[in-house]
């Protein structure tokens, strides 16, 4: 079996190419995704695909609410769109189509319709200020009807995107700007290597299945995307202090793999949840509340959340650094829960 080492951006590109070859109902729709001499979307994911699939790379006007609605219409008629926004922040302009229409259409039809829309949105705080930084996971969690996945590695990006495209339900994939490994003019400063060996074979990562990234006995740390990588770094740091951290990457937020998380909590009794968006009502709030409801007998310390403050993302680097949970902040939270 041959393998290739690919960045997330490259891996997603090859994955989309493969899905479009495999199934001619699959098409891409979004802004700046199919311009020769362009960038392949904001982060190079669709770069060059227009050469092979000239009529299935739909380069849209800047009309987010419009083209998400178009994706829905096409999906109900049997096509399988992959719709992307350049920054997750712009999906807010399409919240009517995403939340009122895409999420609810099947339910409102009494289960008669299928809505196989895949959506992709880059998240993360990257020096661009308040309107290009948001993580929308907390906005979509309370919108039943959309599955949500968050790949932290290229391997998972491919496996989850295949699952999403082949799935008959709407799936939103959040991707992190600092994990793409975009190259050339679209490279990001502060990027982290999230590349993987990608097998040739047609594997999938099932939606709703977490992965234990690092086994440990003392504390369970739950994090996705960039925060997962920082949590691994924190775990390495804490190992030297004799704290044995288990890092769980849920990979899917909806549906959520409670079994894997609960098994870990039974073992460690201590939980830290890390996320990049504001703490209030975040993903961590949902996980913590459920664990408090259902696992209280196993918890030996209060659940800790490490998150951004309840403000928009600031621009200036010292404030931005303060805003995004750092390795040290994660480590400190772990130390605190182990002191119980």
């Amino acid at each position, binding site marked *: 079996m041959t393998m290739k080492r690919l960045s997330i951006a490259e891996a997603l590109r090859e994955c989309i190419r493969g899905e479009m070859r495999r199934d001619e109902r699959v098409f891409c729709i979004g*802004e*700046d995704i199919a*311009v*020769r*001499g*362009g*960038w392949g979307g904001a982060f190079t994911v669709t770069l060059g695909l227009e050469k092979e699939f000239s009529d299935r790379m739909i*380069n*849209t*006007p*800047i*009309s*987010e*609410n*419009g083209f998400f609605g178009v994706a829905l219409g096409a999906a109900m008629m049997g096509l399988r769109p992959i719709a992307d926004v350049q920054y997750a*922040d*712009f999906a807010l*302009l399409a919240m009517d189509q995403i939340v009122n229409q895409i999420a609810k259409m099947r339910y409102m039809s009494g289960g008669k319709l299928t809505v196989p829309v895949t959506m992709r949105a880059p998240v993360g705080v990257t*020096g*661009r*200020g*308040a*309107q*290009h930084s948001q993580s929308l996971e907390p906005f979509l969690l309370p919108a039943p009807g959309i599955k949500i996945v968050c790949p932290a590695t290229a391997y998972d990006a491919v496996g989850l995107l295949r699952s999403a495209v082949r799935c008959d339900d709407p799936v939103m994939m959040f991707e992190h700007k600092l994990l793409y490994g975009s190259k*050339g*003019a679209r490279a990001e*400063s502060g990027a982290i290597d999230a590349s993987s060996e990608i097998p040739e074979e047609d594997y999938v990562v099932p939606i709703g299945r977490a992965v234990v990234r690092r086994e440990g006995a003392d504390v369970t740390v739950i994090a996705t995307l960039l925060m997962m990588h920082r949590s691994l770094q924190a775990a390495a740091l804490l190992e030297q202090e004799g704290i044995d951290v288990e890092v769980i990457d849920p990979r899917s937020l909806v549906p959520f793999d409670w079994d894997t998380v609960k098994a870990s909590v039974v073992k460690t009794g201590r939980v830290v949840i890390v996320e990049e968006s504001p703490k209030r009502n975040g993903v961590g709030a949902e996980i913590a509340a459920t664990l408090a409801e259902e696992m209280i007998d196993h918890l030996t310390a209060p659940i800790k959340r490490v998150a951004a*403050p*309840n*403000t*928009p993302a*600031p*621009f*200036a*680097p*010292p*404030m931005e*650094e*303060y*805003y995004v949970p750092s390795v040290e902040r994660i480590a400190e939270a772990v130390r605190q829960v182990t002191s119980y």
Partner: protein
Amino acid sequence: MSPTGYGPDFLLDLYRQMVLIRHFEERVKYLFLEGVMPGTIHQCNGQEACAVGVCAALEPADVITSTHRPHGHALAKGITVVEAMGELFGRTTGCCKGKGGSMHLGDLAKGMVPAIAIVGGGIPVATGIALAFKMKKEKRVAVCFMGDGATNEGAFHEGVNMGAIWTLPVVYVVENNLYGASTPVSWVVRTKTISERSRLYGIPGVTIDGNDVLAVYVAAKKAVRRARTGKGPTLLELMTYRITGHSRRDPALYQPEEEKKRALENEPIGRFAKYLLDRQLADQRRLDQIAEEVDQEIEAAVEMALAAPQPKPEDTLQDLFVA
């Protein structure tokens, strides 16, 4: 053909402002590429006549909204180089104390709302500013800068229509640089011009040579007068070209070489310099002197910004609510 009859002080000030914006953008680009300046940048090289021509038609109390590409608008509306540079460096001396950055430059005290980096987001906002002027019976005007790309957002339709039906004192200024990011406008707009969309809202619309600063000024003056005298909005489409990348390190390979070449010959500063020289309103020495003065002003601002204090990390928590 450019109109004549303006005094040399006025004309040279237009020239100075355009050169200031161009040199500001160039300096910022180098600082960014050197890694000295944080964030991302969208330069407006080639589009200076739009910002300068329109803002020259405004009073200080008039208010503009801007976009992800706001540096030119900010400088033309009276934000100082020091305030703008400070913000780009994320310093406390910046016009938003480092909270906003390049894409949110602005200061209401100077008549500019912090720039709105959501494409089209400013269109209803400018309409609301104009509604307030009308309700408060103030003789002020709102100007909404946007790109061609923004006219395909739903917010364009909603915002312009409300401006039209309520006869508000607002001017919608579309800087048509032929591209929305990398996408050619011809792929995403069926009509020959964008200004003809104005008819659907029942307001006047014109397409102007946006690289002719005087033509822009004259058209803006007319639209602003119309707005100020209670006759309602105008849609100005200013034809221009971005002679630099969309952002950061974009090499703009999607712009055909031939088109780029023609655009460079048609860029507004060279054209206006020729206008001034041909009419002997200035000599080359005077123009060089302006460039030098401008460079000194920019250099001083860079030094001040680099020496200015950075915000404290905990400043993140300030400025969210009034109380």
